[in-house]
């Protein structure tokens, strides 16, 4: 039984059955096996991301173009810098964790408290970064996109389209964010104005309605626009980089079937394939929940260390065990970073 003990283990340290497989404690081994099973869950998720990425290769967004903002920096272009910063924060908090474990091996209580505290702070920073990134992803760009027949047309970014009392205003933005505006004054009677007010009110609160409720309102709105002889001028970017006005037929097709999309939710997103948003929420959310529980566990262990509970016990193995979990969280993020953001 060579695997049992390469060194003599005193009786107090042995497991209940009076042997210690692999010469590790029961708790540490079980933590390892838990981590293996959890790693398989994440593997399944990331492999599923790869599967859908190839299935929808032509509409899968490029992450560098989706995540390129930094807090307080407005709309400047920093592809993936923020995600890299998050990765770095998590790596650093992993380092402080391993330093806490090392201090634990020397029974250096002050050292453990310092490093474990910094680990908790690092974890909180990561969580807040994730909150910021989620809100940025959900909010989306000012330009948005138009969805036609379930396909996202990014270059026809829409800002707003509305009929107001005195006429019609359509605001669009091209791919570079330049605002294009179209205003047409209308000779409207009171009844028409009221109808328009009512319909635009509904459409401005579109998120309060189900798609089934919204469809007739939309239809009525579009019919009204057509009856007034309105058509929207949509710029479209051709391959030579110039903008062309769409033909009337194309505009009509867009008006009938097109739908402005801003940001992201579980049903659609302005960036491309809906599976991209779904996997973003699920994979980073599942990982974020791991980080959250890790921060809570680290905090509890920290409180125990401060109280001197492990000092009495004679060893700081609990720090080592929570450390294993925390490193695992970092490890998973390294893979998420590569397989969701980079590749």
């Amino acid at each position, binding site marked *: 039984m060579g695997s049992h003990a*390469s060194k003599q283990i005193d009786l107090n340290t042995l*497991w209940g059955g009076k042997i210690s497989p692999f010469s590790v404690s029961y708790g540490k081994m079980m933590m390892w096996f838990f981590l*293996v099973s959890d790693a398989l869950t994440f593997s399944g998720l990331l*492999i599923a991301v790869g599967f859908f990425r190839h299935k929808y290769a032509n509409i899968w967004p490029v992450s*560098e173009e989706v995540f390129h903002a930094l807090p307080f920096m407005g709309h400047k272009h920093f*592809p993936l810098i923020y995600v890299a910063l998050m*990765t770095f924060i998590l790596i650093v908090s992993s380092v402080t964790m391993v330093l806490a474990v090392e201090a634990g*091996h020397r029974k250096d209580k002050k050292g453990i408290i310092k490093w474990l505290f910094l680990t908790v702070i690092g974890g909180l920073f990561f969580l807040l970064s994730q909150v910021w990134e989620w809100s940025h992803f959900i909010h989306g760009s000012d330009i948005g996109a138009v969805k036609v027949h379930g396909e996202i047309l990014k270059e026809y970014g829409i800002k707003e389209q509305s009929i107001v009392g005195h006429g019609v205003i359509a605001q669009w933005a091209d791919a570079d964010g330049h605002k294009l505006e179209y205003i047409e004054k209308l000779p409207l009677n009171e009844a028409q104005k009221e109808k328009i007010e009512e319909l635009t009110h509904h459409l401005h609160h579109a998120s309060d309605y189900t798609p089934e409720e919204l469809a007739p309102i939309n239809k009525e709105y579009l019919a009204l626009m057509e009856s007034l002889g309105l058509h929207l001028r949509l710029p479209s970017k051709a391959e030579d980089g110039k903008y062309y006005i769409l033909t009337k037929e194309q505009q009509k097709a867009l008006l009938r079937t097109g739908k402005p999309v801003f940001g992201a939710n579980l049903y659609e997103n302005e960036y491309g394939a809906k599976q991209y948003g779904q996997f973003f929420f699920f994979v980073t959310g599942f990982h974020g929940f791991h980080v959250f529980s890790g921060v809570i566990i680290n905090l509890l262990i920290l409180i125990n260390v401060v109280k001197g509970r492990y000092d009495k016990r004679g060893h700081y193995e609990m720090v080592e065990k929570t450390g294993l979990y925390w490193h695992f969280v970092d*490890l998973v993020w390294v893979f998420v970073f590569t397989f969701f953001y980079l590749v």
Partner: protein
Amino acid sequence: MERDDVIEYSLDAHHSEEEGKKIRSKIYKVTLALSVLTIIEVGLGIIASGWYGVSWEVVKYTFIVLTIIKAYMIVMTFMHLGDERKNLRWAVIIPYLFFAAYLIFICLYEGAAKMP
């Protein structure tokens, strides 16, 4: 019932001050390597699209190789799997590799199947 997680501990639960110094310098080296690799990954992602003659495939596989190197360093140094007994090391790694490879295989194999 007596809680057995209270009394037991691993053989390697303690080390001396000198050993600690060595371990810490190793930790700092690995930290530096991990940071540099992350910077290389992001930099590569930014400039790779502008390189002529370098296909995205090559960049992609570079990313995957760098990631596996990073994972190896985290698991072996930070998680101290490198310091555990050989048997535990393989008991953790082999089932994982086996099932991950199986998942990838099934995805590629079934993904390539034609619908009847």
